[in-house]
């Protein structure tokens, strides 16, 4: 017998993402899903961000990695709530993993929750976990061809942080081309150019986070 089905294959994920989002909105927590390739500097950016926002915003972090607790240990040193997810091989975080991780975090104590996705420029963009926005991190040394090679990631993101600007003299990557191509894919994209090593540009990024959080609270 044939059964006609009209069902999104990812409907279970979307359902759980909606439940996660409701939880975030109950406590007024702004949630960012940070995506990048491995080694772009997600954990380092988070560490710097946490330190710079101390006293203004209470951050919480969910770390997604295939294996290990190294990232959570690094973030834990900054004295903020952190939960590590090990995907055990999966190339992305999904909504049910976040739902489980939330059991280990009191959202009432968190103004901005940052979900550090598995390092990967392809799959994380496909899975909604209930976040309010996706933020992409690209390090200059990955090359200026990345926006046009991994377009979906750049299209789905609200903001792009270009990191490792201090390497500009040593690599043949043009930050202007990154910006131009990223904006052609996503004209509304907010772009930050930073160096976590020297601290350059980080204040513009943290100021934006503060503004975005204030706007989020006002609209909720």
């Amino acid at each position, binding site marked *: *017998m*044939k*059964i*006609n*089905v*009209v*069902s*999104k*294959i*990812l*409907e*279970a*994920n979307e359902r759980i993402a909606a439940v996660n989002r409701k939880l975030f909105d109950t406590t007024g927590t702004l949630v960012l899903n940070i995506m990048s390739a491995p080694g772009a500097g997600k954990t380092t950016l988070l560490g710097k961000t946490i330190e710079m926002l101390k006293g203004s915003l209470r951050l919480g972090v969910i770390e997604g990695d295939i294996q290990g607790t190294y990232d959570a240990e690094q973030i834990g040193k900054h004295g903020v709530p952190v939960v590590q997810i090990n995907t055990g091989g*999966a*190339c*992305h975080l*999904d909504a049910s993993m976040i739902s489980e991780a939330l059991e280990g975090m009191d959202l009432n104590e968190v103004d901005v929750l940052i979900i550090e996705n598995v390092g*990967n420029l*392809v*799959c994380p*963009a*496909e*899975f909604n976990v209930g976040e309010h926005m996706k933020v992409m991190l690209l390090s200059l040394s990955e090359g200026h061809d990345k926006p*046009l090679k991994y*377009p*979906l990631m750049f299209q789905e993101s609200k903001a792009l942080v270009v990191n490792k600007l201090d390497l500009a003299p040593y690599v043949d990557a043009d930050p202007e081309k990154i910006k131009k191509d990223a904006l*052609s*894919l996503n004209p509304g994209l907010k772009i930050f150019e930073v160096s976590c090593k020297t601290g350059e540009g980080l204040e513009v990024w943290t100021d934006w986070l503060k503004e975005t959080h204030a706007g989020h609270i006002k609209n909720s």
Partner: protein
Amino acid sequence: MHEASIALSILDIAKKQCEEAGYSTIQSIVVDIGGASGILPDALLMAFDIVKLDTPAHDATLVINEIPIGGRCDDCSRDFTTDDSFVLTCPHCGGREFKLTTGRELDIKEIEVD
């Protein structure tokens, strides 16, 4: 790249539908997969053949309708379709203002049970 997750989701939905309808085996599953969905049909078929073992779908065939990317350009008002997996500009006029109408599908359409 995450075809295994997608194959598992397809299997979960099909198993549920099969049970609810009071049947015990799944013979085929028809899905629509869009060209911009990030899913490679060949990889999905391979993943499905692995995840279906020891389930009511162990003999099931996965039938994939590949849906090309299609859109309508706001600049030249023409419709287009393409076999590419991404569209940056309208293939007719090169305009950047267009809306995709198809290509992001990841849908289950039909299940055959016994």
